[in-house]
């Protein structure tokens, strides 16, 4: 690894940890600000799913839907969100799969374990992330966050937090 690669890996790793910490702290505005305006939070509903247009997804939030989702999480009046479900994210196995220093873009692959606790029970999610990131003047931003659950073919229970 060159010094540049090590520096990028360190920066991206710290970014992913910070993102996870914002979710676990329920800092929804802080998490929302990690995205570029046209950024997308995507959770496919099938293994190897190629797009969100011709196939259903579990989550497919553009800027508008991300705002609605976060507003709903903050609002506290949704039946499923009573008691404010909490989460604990572990992010690991981080590698930079692709880097374009000239365009300041990075693609990071990682693995997660997310514990979700709601008043009626708890659940643990396992899977992988793909983060497409761009470095803006004040730091990294998310262009696409892709979440692939290992048990995506289901049956699935409620996913009440941001994974």
């Amino acid at each position: 690894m060159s010094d540049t690669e090590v520096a990028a890996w360190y920066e991206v790793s710290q970014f992913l940890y910070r993102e996870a910490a914002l979710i676990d702290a329920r800092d929804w505005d802080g998490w929302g600000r990690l995205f570029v305006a046209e950024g997308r939070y995507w959770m496919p509903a099938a293994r190897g799913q190629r797009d969100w247009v011709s196939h259903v997804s579990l989550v497919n939030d553009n800027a508008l839907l991300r705002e609605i989702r976060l507003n709903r999480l903050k609002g506290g009046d949704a039946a499923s969100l009573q008691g404010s479900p909490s989460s604990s994210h572990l992010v690991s196995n981080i590698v930079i799969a692709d880097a374009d220093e000239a365009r300041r873009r990075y693609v990071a692959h990682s693995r997660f374990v997310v514990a979700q606790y709601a008043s009626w029970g708890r659940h643990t999610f396992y899977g992988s992330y793909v983060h497409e990131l761009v470095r803006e003047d004040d730091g990294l931003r998310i262009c696409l966050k892709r979440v692939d659950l290992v048990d995506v073919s289901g049956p699935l229970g409620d996913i009440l937090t941001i994974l």
Partner: protein
Amino acid sequence: MASPLVAQVAPPLQHTVSLMDPDSKTLDVDACVRPGGVHRSVYVDAAIFETELTRIFERSWIYLGHESQVAKPGDYYATRIGRHPVLMVRGQEGEIRVFINRCMHKGTQLLAEGCGHGTKALRCPYHGWVFGLDGALRTVPAHAGYAEHGARAGSGEFALRNVASGTYRGFIFARMSGQGPGLIDWLGPLKDSLDNFVDRSPTGAVEVAGGVLRYEHACNWKFFMENTLDALHPMVVHLGAARAAREIAAEASSGDGISRKSPAPFEMQALAPFAGSYTFYDEMGARVIPNGHADLGGAASIHSAYDEDPEYLRVMVASYGEERTRKILSSSRNNSVAYPSLMFKAPMQLLRVVRPLAVDRTLIETWHFRLKGAPESLLARTVSYSTLVNSSAGMVGPDDHQIYRQLQSGLAAAQVEWVDMSRYLGEGEDGADGSVSVKGTSDAMFRGQFATWQALMRAEVISA
């Protein structure tokens, strides 16, 4: 000697009844249903659930899948009816048959649940017995040892066990019991709603597309069947999602946020009607149909104000002409129920299959369809809606699920026995086709489900 703690516990109330006689294992069905109400035990009693699996789910036409899932000879789809593994398969001559998905040798489930394509024969993974797509036993390895006992190719005794099946407009149903009305008679006026599902294709054909969602619910199956026709809950349960959407829309229009697009993004059009008024839901109306079926919505629904793709309108008019196109698209039934296994949304090209797992566990599958000959934007709209509403990570479905969970736990209280279904009791207009038109917020659809429930559960045998 009773401890002080035990002494504080109230004795059980004497008036609570057990509807299931533990000795004779017989169920007093008529004690479960009364005009305008049902007994709590129908949702929480495990013995009643077991009886439902045989008396409701084996005696009714159960939705299995769509013919496009088995488009070519050798294509199959394996699922369940209650606990019975079943298999629908297209034979070499193009006919679709349904079998019990069990090897006739030792009983191994032949094929895992899900679909497969282009198989020449069905081979048991245990001892390698091979069955034809017509169910006939083709080959038995080391068959000589069976010579005297009949397990040989062509033996009728060892052919896969057939299940009665029927198809309407491409939708395939099966029934374990040989008794009862034929599929078309059983559907009755609900046929119109399935017609509307398919007629929305300019070529009159739909196909499964866009994947499936499998969402496990921690509740009795009947809560889902009722809730899809319950027009008194959206403005309460889904207010959070609709409010969140409305606030963001208001922010956008004031210029302080996401730039306002014209027309409103589909997702906003989809979420906004969930906060519709009681009048809006009452006026959309509902139809109660024999055999437990019903639809909510008609001339209006939560889907009827969506913008239509001009290209879609163009191809529809090219196929059907102006008048018939208008007629097809003006029928907007929110939700239709083919009791007890299917809910479908004709205007949205999606359906949901209800699979009872236990008294308090139900698997809901959401399937999506492409209108053949229509622009791909229609499929994009369908999957966008489903992602938003039906996904277990969505902004609508998990709130319904939480209510079902609280119904399941609330009804554990044996001290209060009855569940109310009395709204607009006795009101409605009888149609010539046997259906009854009622207000959208009526409980008549639930009363219709339980009338069928009662008839099926009561009867030792049923007639055609």
